[in-house]
Each structure stands twice: as structure tokens, then as C-alpha cells.
């Protein structure tokens, strides 16, 4: 079973990996976007880590709702509301339970990803974070490691696609050949989940 501590570890592992990869995320956002994805998420997850330190919610749902709110209040851009909604909705779906199973997390995460798709209007294949999140959720039934691999493959698979949502869509066909920054950061989020699980 996964407790609040596990979810805190997930968030701090995400914060650490976003810190490490911030330059790469921004660089990916340069040729097809506005060169801010790395600093956006860095700002957001630094705030998340600080808030969790300070408030230390006692339930998995509480951790993710707090994290999502922090992202919404500190990131801005497209990724702030989208990642914020992802974590908030996932957290809400987890309810008040003090511990949750991997299956419950998978189900809740699917609700979160659905909310992101509703909010942003992106479908798989549009070359967005969705392309990493959906396969990850699908694979989560097997293992965290499988989810990580699926997310990473999903991110890489955005490279030949033409972006149809977000800023990258503005460059039209010129987005082809570039890996989507949001899909890349989504893979980091899922990798951090595996890391929190010790996998």
C-alpha cells in the first residue's frame, strides 16, 4: 500500500528530476515553443516541495491536491493548469484514504489524465503530454517500471508527430521532428513515481 509519505517522495523526486532536466526541457521548448518549459516546472515543483515540507498533508489525496494547487498558483503557462489539474484531480479521486493500492492510484491517475484531456482538448497523437501520460496509465496495471518505460516511449514517439495543441502547433509542419517538451516532462513525472516506489 502507498501512504502519504510515498506520494511526498514522488513529488520531491519529481522536483529533483525537473531541476536536473530543466535546461533540457527549456531547450526542447525552444525550436517549437517559447523556451520556458523547464523554468516553468522548476518554479512549480520547487513550490510544491516547499509547500509539502511546510504543510505535510496526511493522506495521498491531500498531498496531490496540495501539489496541484501549488502548480496552478505558481507555474502559469499551459503546463501549470494542466499539470495542476492532473495532480488535483488524481488527488481528489483518491479521496480521504490514508493508504491506497497501486490499482487505486492507476484508476485515480486515469481520472486525472481524463481531466487534462477535457481541459486542454488534446487527444493522443496531438504531440502533447497526453502522449506520455495515457500509455503510462495503461501500463501502470503491470508495474511502475512498465509505466515509466511506456511514458518514455510515448514521449519519444511525439518526435515524428505534428503538434496540434499548445504553442508547438503554431509552427505547423515544422514541429515534426521535435520531441514534445511536455511529453518529456510527463515522462519525468512517471519516472519519479517509479523511483518513489524504489523501482
Amino acid at each position, binding site marked *: 500500500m502507498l501512504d502519504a509519505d510515498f506520494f511526498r517522495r514522488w513529488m520531491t523526486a519529481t522536483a529533483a528530476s525537473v531541476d536536473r532536466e530543466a535546461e533540457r526541457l*527549456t*531547450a526542447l521548448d*525552444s*525550436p*517549437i*515553443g*517559447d*523556451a*520556458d518549459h*523547464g*523554468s*516553468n516546472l522548476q*518554479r512549480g515543483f520547487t513550490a510544491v516541495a516547499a509547500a509539502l515540507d511546510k504543510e505535510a498533508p496526511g493522506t495521498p489525496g491531500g498531498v496531490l491536491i496540495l501539489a496541484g494547487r501549488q502548480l*496552478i*498558483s*505558481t*507555474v*502559469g*503557462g*499551459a*503546463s*501549470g*493548469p*494542466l499539470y495542476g489539474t492532473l495532480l488535483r484531480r488524481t488527488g481528489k479521486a483518491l479521496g480521504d484514504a490514508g493508504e491506497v493500492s497501486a490499482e487505486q492510484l492507476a484508476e485515480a491517475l486515469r481520472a486525472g489524465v481524463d481531466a487534462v484531456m477535457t*481541459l*486542454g482538448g488534446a487527444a493522443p497523437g496531438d504531440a502533447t503530454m497526453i502522449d506520455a501520460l495515457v500509455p503510462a496509465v495503461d501500463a501502470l496495471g503491470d508495474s511502475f517500471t512498465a509505466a515509466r518505460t511506456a511514458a518514455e516511449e510515448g514521449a519519444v514517439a511525439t518526435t515524428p508527430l*505534428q503538434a*496540434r*495543441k*499548445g*504553442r508547438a*502547433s*503554431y*509552427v*505547423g509542419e*515544422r514541429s515534426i521532428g521535435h520531441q514534445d517538451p511536455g511529453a518529456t516532462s510527463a515522462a519525468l513525472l512517471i519516472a519519479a513515481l517509479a523511483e518513489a516506489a524504489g523501482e
Partner: protein
Amino acid sequence: MLINVPETVVADALRGLAAAHPELTVDVENRVIVRRDAPVAGQVGLVSGGGSGHEPLHGGFVGPGMLSAACPGEVFTSPVPDQMLRAAAAVDSGAGVLFIVKNYTGDVLNFDMAAEMAEDEGIQVAKVLVNDDVAVTDSLYTAGRRGTGATLFVEKIAGAAAAEGMPLERVEAVARQVNENSRSFGIALSACSTPAKGSPTFDLPPGELELGIGIHGEPGRERRSMMTSGEIAEAAVEAVVEDLQPRNPVLVLVNGMGATPLLELYGFNAEVHRVLEQRGVPVARVLVGNYVTSLDMAGASLTLCQVDEELLRLYDAPVKTPGLRWGV
């Protein structure tokens, strides 16, 4: 760059804005710029905002006759809902608040969230989306047309409508009318450098240019080898006029992206006028300058806004902001 560290660029600019403009209330910590006399009794409040790096848009357009408040985000990053909520609360006199939102996923999502939160607090909110950029043609398969230069016209004209005491629905309708009658097209001669990245956001060798750029340092739709000012004017006017098909006189905005000298911008304006005349498009008013910028990008954009008598009267109405001022 003339900065301290990338992390404090926006806060530093807000402190400097406060020092230069005592007629504005600048909340540096919460990143909200409000005209000092807000809320103005009986007047609709106008709130806009977006990523920083487009100055004077939006903070430089706060003041009588234009915006009531602006929310600057990080560079090229839309602000967060908390900012818009705070701005709405500061400017609502009970007559309601209009959010003027440039059409970018981030701006739309954050303003949407703010609108929900504001309505929860009993503030009546209307929203108008600015989406004037004709370079984004195929909006079914994109995030929709971007909001660029027309934002200035929407903010100016809706600001005048609010100053006249029009009710929220009217101000919103006027703003929407301005947007629907505006189209823009931008070109870049160089990429810009964001403080966080520190180097150009994309590679544009001298002797080449990008057609159909936005205002966030993203490349355009197409790369070409260098064209003359006259050829660029032809391309820009054609793109805008074909889409807008104006029948009435137009407001013309010849806008610099930041690093193009005024000397060149005025020369470009001459070419734009030559082409407009050839096409028989009557010109009502002209504005030339760096108004909706993209940091230190070299290049320009053209915006045309078709106006009827009411819109022209509202455009001509007094405005008193750091970035745009006449009649007072």
C-alpha cells in the same frame, strides 16, 4: 542582458515601473498593476495580462481610458489565476470585470480558472479572446489563431467604452467587435533571447527571415531569404487584407518586435501605405512603434482593424497610460 539574475527580471521591472509611474499601484509581490484610482464607480473594470516580454503590453496600458489592471506572468509565460483574481477584486466597482485574453492555451486556461474563482467571490466576469494572427491558418488543427497586435486595439477601444460608462455586455460586445475586425501578420529578422535561456530561442542566420511569427520567440511558418521592406510589406498586407477583406477604413498598427529601429519601422510604414493604397484600403488612423514586442526580436508586425464610426470615436477618445497617451 541588462538584468540582475533571470529569476528576478519581472519583479525588478515592476519595481522600476512603480518608481516611474506613481499613478499606478504596483503590487510587486503579487504581480498586479492597477490604476491608482481603481475601482472607478460605475465603470466596468478591464483586466488583461499575459507573459512578460511584450512591454509596453500590458502593464504599460494601464490607466484612464485603457486597462484597469494588468497581470504580468514570467517571461513568455501566462500569469497564474491568483493574479487575475486579485486584479478583478481590485478593479470591480460592482459593474463587473472584462478579462481580455490573448488566445494561447496557457492564457486561456489560467484566465478561465480565475474567472471561475472570481465568480465564486461574486464578481461578474466576462471574457473576450483576442485571436488576430492570420499566420495561423489552419485553426482546426492548432490551438487556434494567436492573439497579437490586435490586443492593443481591443484594450484601447474597450477601455474607452468602459470609461464612457457602458455596461459590461456592451463593453464586451465592443471588444469582441474590435477583435473580429482585426487581423495581424508578423515577420522576424532575428530571434529573441529570453533571460532564462540567455541565447536566441531559434537559429536565424543573417540574410534570412521568418514569415508568420508570433510574439513569444517561436519561429514562424516559413523561412525565406532576405526580402526588402517593400516586399515584406506586400506579403504582410496581402496576408492581412485577404483574410480581413475590409470595406470600412482601417486603423493601422505598424508594430516593432523590440529591436527594430524606429527609422526602419517608419520606412516599413511607408511601404505598408503604398501597398494599402494600391489595394484601395482607406486608412483612418496610424500607429507606429514598439507596442506589442517580443523582447529583443528584430522584426515587425502589421495589424489592421476595420472600424465603424463608433469604434473610431472610441479609439480617438482620451487615454493616459505609460505606453499610449493622447487627449489628456
